[in-house]
């Protein structure tokens, strides 16, 4: 069952559309990652999912139920930790107990607050009585997480929880989130730039750009400027001078991004014996990582600052002894490129039936 289902969501700030999601669901009990540059709409999406704001248009279903404005009961089943987690001007203990108290749920309060503090690695005896200004950045972020965990929410929404905190704090927060999922089956949605963490913990990663969900993780996106090179043909000069060529390009490729599915990209040690019909670009193998949930090995290849995501089969990796730092060729089918409109101001020009995709 889906914990969230979003239908035709549009959200505007001052008349300007900042988020538009046609159809998206999140499976119950899953961990979902939101990945994308600053300003791509991750925080806005989390704020809608946390029922802090109401979408300007569209419908959000929570566990199958329609949600409307000021639905306090549903809001209390979800806990959002905002990006700038603000501690109330009270002691750490009172901060953690706040959510319990406004729910009128004060049974075993002391025990639960102490437990929540220890989950995020803060010693209750040392920290309970501290005031909001007596904590470091990492400690106050952990206290803010404890204030959400103590509520045992059905859904935990984390907005860049580890950004700007020390490594030890980040580690403890990651563990606390994973424990909440394991012990209570909490569904978690995390917006983060920490791809490695997302790959490690998430069942599903979605890529966001310019207020849109551009599909599941693993896609490689190539953003403009595009040059029209023929009918249906567009080219993008990469930072190192190589040219990425693609077919099926829209009439006006300005404001669009080209996307490649990982299975349509392969890596090769040399340019010889490339599969027919494929184009190739030379890059550097940056990272090999294991995706825990799928068991696949994910390779990141940098081509002139653009990251290509490939899932090479283990035999290829072993045969060519690919190591990070090695020069490799990434090959792709130019005719299997998908095009997405990413800039909101050109929205009108897009196909009416599939406003985001050509």
């Amino acid at each position, binding site marked *: 069952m889906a914990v969230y289902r979003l239908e035709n969501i549009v959200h505007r700030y001052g008349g300007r559309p900042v988020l538009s999601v046609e159809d998206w669901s999140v499976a119950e009990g899953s961990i979902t990652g939101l990945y994308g540059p600053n300003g791509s709409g991750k925080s806005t999406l989390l*704020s809608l999912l*946390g*029922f*802090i704001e109401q979408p300007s248009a569209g419908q959000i279903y929570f566990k199958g139920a329609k949600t409307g404005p*000021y639905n*306090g009961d549903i*809001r*209390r089943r979800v*806990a*959002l*930790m*905002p990006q*700038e*987690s*603000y501690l*109330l*001007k009270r002691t750490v203990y009172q901060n953690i107990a*706040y*959510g319990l108290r*406004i*729910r009128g749920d004060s049974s075993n309060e002391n025990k639960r607050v102490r437990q929540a503090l220890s989950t995020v690695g803060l010693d209750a005896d040392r920290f309970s009585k501290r005031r909001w200004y007596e904590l470091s950045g990492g400690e106050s972020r952990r206290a803010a997480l404890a*204030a*959400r965990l103590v*509520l045992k929410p059905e859904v935990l929404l984390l907005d860049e929880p580890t950004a700007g905190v020390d490594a030890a704090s980040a580690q403890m927060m990651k563990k606390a989130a994973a424990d909440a999922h394991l012990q209570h089956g909490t569904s978690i949605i995390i917006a983060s730039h920490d791809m490695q963490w997302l790959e490690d913990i998430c069942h599903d990663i979605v890529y966001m750009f310019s207020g849109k969900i551009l599909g599941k993780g693993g896609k490689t996106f190539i953003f403009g400027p595009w040059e029209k090179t023929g009918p249906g043909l567009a080219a993008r000069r990469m930072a190192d001078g190589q040219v990425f060529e693609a077919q099926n390009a829209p009439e006006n490729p300005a404001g669009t991004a080209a996307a490649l599915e990982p299975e349509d990209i392969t890596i090769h040690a040399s340019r010889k014996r490339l599969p027919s019909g494929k184009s190739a670009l030379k890059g550097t193998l940056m990272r090999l990582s294991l995706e825990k949930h799928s068991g696949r090995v994910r390779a990141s290849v940098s081509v002139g600052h653009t990251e290509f995501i490939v899932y090479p089969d283990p035999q290829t990796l072993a045969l060519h002894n690919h190591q990070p730092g090695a020069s490799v060729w990434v090959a792709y089918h130019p005719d299997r490129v998908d095009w997405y409109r990413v800039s909101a101001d050109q929205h009108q020009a897009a196909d009416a039936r599939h406003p985001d995709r050509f």
Partner: protein
Amino acid sequence: MDFIFQGLAEAFTLLFTGDAETFSAVAATLKVSGLSMAASLTIGIPLGFALGYLQFPGRRQARLVVDTLLSLPTVFIGLLVYSFISRQGPLGDMGLLFTLPGIAIGQTILALPIVIALSATAVESLETGLRTTLLSLGAGRRQLVLSTLWEARHAVLAAALTAYGRVMTEVGISMMVGGNIKWDTRTITTAIALETGRGKFATGMALGLVLLMIAFAVNAGVSFLRRR
């Protein structure tokens, strides 16, 4: 210079021997300022919150009016209240002229813009993330208002203190609306004005000292609260 020191010495004598006339003025001051502060905080804090927190058409204009009212002269308020509660005035039948509640009405008008303007500023200067934080922890609308005010408590307290200082030390309203009636509506400030006019500096100074002591006691109390 001698009369000043003499005045100070006499001041202590008056205070520590429990001079009845002095204590009557002190009691009148405390009673009337207590009444006007209770009224202005009850009305002013919710209005200040609304002005600082809510977005509504005409908000800026309302703010401008409140800020202008900060400079209301006390004698003008005295005149206004006098004309309303005097026999010929619309509220003449209530018999409020030359009574402590009459003075309290005038002082409430004096304190109200201060409480409204400063608590609006207090709420406005809270961090923008506060609303999201409270909502994300499950606060309903009532808790949102109460917790927001609690977050601004230090600045709201400062607003109350500023208003209290203004109310305690004003002469115009007390003199015009209260009439400076001995044993009844004579407050510390009207007594000082009277005693100085009569050349009795010592009594005036004693009363001035009492005023300062009350201010000290209130501030000490607030400072204790602020540390908690």
